[in-house]
């Protein structure tokens, strides 16, 4: 056990986990976070708090994670390399850990151009692989510069993987790097192309990566065909099979169809060998989470048997 977080304990006990995702408010209103926590508490095992996603300013991921804790949810703090250099990243991680945040997802971050401050300077001091390495060094009791840390520290480290972007072999090389750098779990981009995911997953199993890291497959409920087309055309690195677009176009009630599609993809992912959990990304539609989890037959959520607290530094 590295961190003793609820997510880590559940995964190590062999449970199939469910994660959610919420975006912090575009303002200083913490009540929004508490309200959104209602949709996730008791329905998912942990919730990602995004870090200025698509480069749009929101409440900081670390502070929102602390509010999510207060709201009764287990947070996964996302951290990007776009906005902070290695000093700021490590200091924010220390603060979040002290406040009880035990999971972190290390990302490179969307480019400034896509957000509401396209004129900003990007930092990109570390890349996501190096950020995983930095947190893993902190787990081993030192900062990324090599200097020793004065107090015990342990976070459950996550990374992202994109099964749908080309070239796939390069993606697998990079996944291997993330694992060797110290990642414990991997969350993927949303699955909207099952044959491609199948192909990627079998390559992952061939490399033996599914034995070294917990893979959580992403899903995304969509409300309209417009949202799906936006994903297909405007978000690079996302692949959407035409079948889903046709289904959404011809649906009488697109919302119902979106839920049905999401549940169907989840049920498929649950039986893929090597997939250890689901990561639901209900972008701006957090309220649908309880229904999706229930319809996929993933309720009630299990309680970890092992206790948290001080863990030994044992690798996944």
């Amino acid at each position: 056990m590295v961190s003793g977080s609820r997510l880590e304990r559940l995964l190590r006990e062999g449970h199939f986990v469910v994660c959610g995702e919420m975006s912090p408010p575009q303002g200083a209103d913490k009540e929004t976070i508490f309200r959104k926590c209602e949709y996730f508490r008791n329905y998912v095992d942990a919730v990602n708090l995004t870090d200025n996603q698509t480069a749009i300013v929101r409440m900081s991921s670390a502070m929102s994670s602390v509010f999510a804790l207060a709201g009764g949810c287990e947070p996964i703090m996302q951290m990007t390399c776009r906005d902070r250099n290695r000093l700021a990243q490590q200091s924010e991680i220390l603060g979040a850990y002290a406040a009880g945040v035990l999971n972190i997802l290390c990302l490179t971050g969307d480019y400034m151009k896509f957000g509401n401050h396209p004129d900003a300077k990007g930092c990109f001091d570390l890349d996501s692989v190096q950020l995983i390495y930095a947190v893993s060094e902190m787990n081993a009791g030192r900062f990324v510069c090599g200097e020793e840390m004065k107090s015990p520290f342990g976070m459950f480290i996550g990374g992202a993987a994109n099964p749908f972007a080309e070239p796939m072999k390069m993606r697998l090389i990079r996944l291997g790097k993330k694992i060797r750098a110290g990642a414990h779990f991997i969350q993927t981009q949303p699955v909207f192309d099952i044959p491609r995911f199948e192909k990627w997953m079998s390559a992952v199993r061939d490399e033996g990566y599914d034995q070294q890291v917990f893979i959580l497959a992403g899903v995304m409920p969509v409300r309209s065909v417009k949202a799906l087309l936006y994903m297909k055309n405007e978000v690079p690195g996302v692949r959407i099979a035409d079948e889903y677009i046709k289904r959404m176009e011809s649906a009488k009630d697109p919302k119902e169809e979106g839920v049905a599609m999401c549940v169907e993809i989840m049920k498929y992912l649950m039986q893929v060998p090597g997939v250890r959990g689901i990561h639901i990304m209900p972008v701006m539609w957090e309220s649908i989470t309880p229904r999706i989890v229930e319809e996929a037959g993933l309720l009630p959520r299990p309680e970890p048997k092992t206790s948290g607290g001080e863990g030994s530094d044992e690798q996944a």
Partner: protein
Amino acid sequence: MSRLSERVAGFFDRHPLLSKGAWLAEIIVKKALFRCQDCGQCVLSYNAFTCCMRCPKEMRNGPCGGTREDGHCEVYPERYCIWWLIYERSRKLRRLDKLRKFHIPVDRRLQHTSAWLNMFAGRIEPLTLSARLKPGEEYPPRRAKEEEKKSEG
């Protein structure tokens, strides 16, 4: 690097004009050939002689998730993703093994200095033309030591 090369590099380091000259000679060649971004810690030999610092996000360990289906960059759609090019060239030159190398965080102090001198002085890892990684290079430094111990024990 050997003691001789360290002494040569030391001599250059003590004479700022000489080391500026070495940097200028290097940057002119590498700018022309590789569109070098002058980070001072060259990884060209790992990346099939394609400079990864040309990436808008300066990714040193592989592509971000935003490569478009046609291999173009998400930030500048008119350009190729640099990691797409690196992968394609590595495949053609049979240097895919080299892509598995873990690159440590960039030392920003070395920017605008000669990578060749830095290599001779032992400030950065030596560049090798070999198409294979040395044992342990795919791990971060601490893990590499652990793995070495494991294989010895």
